[in-house]
């Protein structure tokens, strides 16, 4: 997707200022960054086409289609299970031609719908990340229960989110409907305040 003269505006632009929020601890307990310019598409298997879809995904993108509650990551694309017969195809840098075109090889076996602009993706890490997230995420994020490559669809502060664990640090990513991004940020900021939150990256201020 080509860029026009107007830049893509994040739902958090002018809302979440980069830098420190909450307690001024020496090191932030929670670090947050927005994954901007990423590509996201919903892949829904056509009726009875799951096996064929999995095979096509493997051949075309060199990655296995994940089982329920799991993610898989290939060189170009990651897949996040998000419901029965549904996955999010995700790349942290959107392809020039757009997600629907990139995923066109799958079209016989799945409906492909670009959601790159429909979700705000936030990456959350830091030594106190689990304590902060426990204030809204009902899913057990203890390492015995939720590991790298795990994903869950849940509600946080009454907002539907998809969460997945990126690494053992642990780092999590949240996909939140764009319209709710500000409310989600409000929750994340207040939940992290006692630990100190650092918003890093290129989020612009007003």
């Amino acid at each position, binding site marked *: *997707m*080509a*860029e*026009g*003269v*107007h*830049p*893509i*505006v*994040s*739902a958090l*632009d*002018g809302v979440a200022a980069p830098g420190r929020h*909450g*307690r001024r601890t020496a090191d932030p307990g929670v670090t947050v960054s927005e994954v901007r310019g990423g590509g996201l598409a*919903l892949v*829904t*298997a*056509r*009726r009875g086409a799951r096996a064929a879809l999995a095979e096509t995904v493997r051949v075309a993108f060199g990655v296995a289609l994940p089982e329920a509650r799991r993610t898989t990551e290939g060189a170009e694309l990651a897949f996040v299970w998000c419901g029965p017969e*549904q996955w999010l195809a995700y790349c942290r840098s959107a392809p020039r031609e*757009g997600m629907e075109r990139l995923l066109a090889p799958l079209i016989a076996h*799945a*409906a492909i*719908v*670009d*959601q*790159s*602009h*429909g*979700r705000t993706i936030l990456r959350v890490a830091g030594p106190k990340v689990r304590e902060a997230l*426990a*204030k*809204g*995420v*009902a899913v*057990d994020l*203890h390492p*015995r*229960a939720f590991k790298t490559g795990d994903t869950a669809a849940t509600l946080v*502060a*009454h*907002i539907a989110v998809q969460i997945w664990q990126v690494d053992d640090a642990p780092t999590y990513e949240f996909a939140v*409907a*764009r*319209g*709710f*991004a*500000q*409310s*989600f940020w*409000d*929750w994340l900021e*207040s*939940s992290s*305040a*006692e630990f100190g939150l650092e918003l890093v990256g290129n989020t612009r201020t*007003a």
Partner: protein
Amino acid sequence: MTDPSAKTSPGDGGAGSPPPCGEGSGLGVAKNSVRESHPTPNPSPSRGGGAARMRGGESWRLRQGGLVDRTSAHTFSFDGRGYRGHAGDTLASALLANGVHLVGRSFKYHRPRGILTAGPEEPNALVELRSGARREPNTRATTAELYDGLEARSQNRWPSLKFDLLAVNSLASPILSAGFYYKTFMWPAALWERLYEPLIRRAAGLGRASGADDPDTYEKAFLHCDVLVVGGGAAGLMAALAAGRTGARVVLCEEDFRLGGRLIAESRVLDDQRSSDWVARIGAELAALPNVRILARTSVFGAYDHGTYAALERVNDHVATPPEHEPRQRFWHIYAKRCVLAAGAIERPLVFGDNDRPGIMLAGAVRTYINRYAVAPGRRAVVFGTTDETAQTLSDLARAGVSVEAVVDPRAEAPAGVEAAAKAAGARLVAGGAVMRATGSLHVHGVDVRTAAGETVHIACDLVCVAGGWSPSVHLASHKGARPVWSERIAGFVPDTPPAGMGVAGAANGDLGLADALAGGARLGLAAAGDAGFDGQPVELPKVDGESTGLTPLWRVKGTRGKAFVDLQNDVTDKDVALAEREGFRAVEHLKRYTTLGMATDQGKTSNVAALVLMAELTARSIPQTGSTTFRPPYAPIAIGALAGEHRARHFRPTRLPPSHRWAQEQGAVFVEAGQWLRAQWYPQAGEADWLTSVNREVRTVRERVGVCDVSTLGKIDLQGPDSAEFLERLYINGWKNLAVGKARYGLMLREDGMVMDDGTTSRLAEQRYLVTTTTANAAKVLQHMELCHQWLWPDLDVQFCSVTEQWAQFSIAGPRARDTLRKVIDGQHDISDAALPYLGAAELTAMGGVAARLFRISFSGELAYEIAVPAGHGDGLIRRLMEAGRAFGIAPYGTEALGVMRIEKGHVAGNELNGQTTARNLGLGRMMSRRKDYIGRVMADRPGLTAADRPSLAGFKPVDRDQRLRAGAHFVREGARPVLASDEGYMTSVAFSPALGHWIGLGLIAGGAARHGERVRAYDPVRHGDVLVEVCDPVFYDPAGERLRG
């Protein structure tokens, strides 16, 4: 002992002088207790002395022992007077250390009340804590942790605690008995709200709410574990240790700020260690285990299905104000695979005459104040107990230097242990006797004791220790409905079969002995971990000294004079229970509601059992037959703010913002909540006096030039798959198979019952791809409906669909100059002429130099109009570009009000008409109902009642006097008919001022609908005093031929 102050008269508020300085006794009282300067616990202000009105030292603090930090000095105030205490004190222990026993007035009779307990079951010592917006009524002094600067006030007294005018209620007690309010204030009903209720609320009730916004924050959090241990006493500590050592994830919740339960309240020896030291050792081991989390100051207050528990952590109740960024309290949702309930037991007082006098305390509480807080709660004690623990009480009193005047044991033959302890304490033992009545008013100063021989003797004292046995805290085991069972052995209710996943250990299970509690906790902790998948070795049990836990219950002393309270908090006496029985309220649940027994903050923790045993006696039923009241969460009072957490005010629910929100803010738009969305309602310009002026301007701008409105909030559903058209056929009443690629069509869908569910346009983007749109309000509902239909009704259809509402920013460009404006935004290679993109055309193209866009020629306003969509991240850019492009044409943004005006002018139905009670026919859309296919709602829409000619159906309405304003909600009645329900013919659903027509117009549903055009009816609106004669007309007020939108 010839202390003159012991002869204080009733009403002097005095507990007498401080106790002797404890020479020769083990603990003794602090040497700094100078009698002359502290003659009474509540001296008159003139005797307070000192600029700070600070009382001197803590005269009743024992010289050594206890778990308070003597190196710390916390100053605090009670009713404006300064006192001193230590870290580790509760407000109650600190007040007692300063000789203050009188702390409140009772609920109904305004009787002076003191401190009965040392824990959360306290019925009497409720105070207002803090001041200003942080004022917190009904705080239990026995759980309020002392901090430096604490402010507390007594409640329910006027003008002062010592002199309370409403104490006259006590004289009126013959008429203030149970059911008084119900009987007396019944009639006339009109006086209830204006007179009776305010009066009663002033006279009764407890503390006052601050009335101001709570300045503190609260939060919610989730916690998962293998084993939840509720209670950090002997059983709980062993359970946590046994489970923790297996590696299981253990959460130990203790409502106190210190672990130990009775182990820190008694002086016991475990493994040759003092019990408090043993607790510290076990606590340290638990704290060192990475898989164990100890939550102190945390009450588990509810048990729910599937191992879910609710708990409240008082994170910062023990400081004056929470540190920045920290909550005051935290509400935990705990998910536990297994639970060990080790909540302990609550001691019961005894029912005798005037048993509510300050200075009458539970024996267990007295031991707590002595052992844990190093406070002597009195100087001369009478012990009145039915349990073998009296021996322990006597030994603790003796070590604290409290003289024991008498031991009254109702058992004809007191157990040997009690007898020996009485002898050791030098106390007179009255076996087979009873305390008949306490004397004194603001403080107890003696008791009338009836001996076994039937004589009554008066014994002077300033402390009465009462012990009526223990009631296990079975609440959490009963929250899911299981009734506890009666145990004769302990004369109390014990859990029957605890809920799945829960084990009950220690005193909560009726195992009152320490060795049993330790063993039970260790066993259940290990079993719980095992059930959760973690095996380990049994924990070695500490060696303990033995104790006797025998008792013979005494539920009520008979033949007493004075009020014998069963429920101290609600001022319910034994006579009230008898009255309830006489008046037929014999079931325990009726007893509770009739007398209020067991209600309010303590929920009858110290009173319920005695009350129902009295009822059992009165009705000659057994205790199991009489039963217990229902245990419901919460176990302890919970601030509503804690349940709300951060979801208050603006954060009550999440806000959903459309892509142009920031730009609209810059324009100074006024916003309106549309479901969760925040939408621009109108855009006021300088000089516009009111909303109507702005809205009229916006409407005229669209009708004459061009306007732009963010319509991203409408639901957008991407539908794909070979069976998409068939899917639409079944969902909508109208046909879809002949809709060409690149075309849009209006559709209407019904519910199963034939009523209209939603409407919107659907565009065919490709052979097997559609974009379905819904109203803003029904976006989620329609998607759910489609999911249900696909998964449940027609799983054979090969369709895939999902919401793309958030993916696309969509703007309506409406007005004669809409195309001219768009021409400057759509990339040049795309032809958007009327020929290329006629009315109801849909195209995928690019805008703003290569941004993917969709353009739909659809119109809600009735003007030449388009909706343009771009990926949401470009929405902000697009609105700015559109405004720039339209400037030369006089473009203006318009909000939901103008949108509404124009749709009413055009007679388009919206949410007010799609109200769940209208069919397609009622809305004038019956001709859309296809006869060539089946669809959801078809059959039910043909029910006779729904097709009747007099069904309220859509029509337009205009005031006969064009200057009159219409109101939505007004009901239609025929001219000359009486405006009563029987003559109701329907109501006005939507109204607007039409700038084009220059008067108010309305849409409404009226019996007969279209058949009545031209008729005049009354629009009657008694709520707003409206009564307007209106003319029924066609609902399309503006451009009925629809020429403008094809321009």
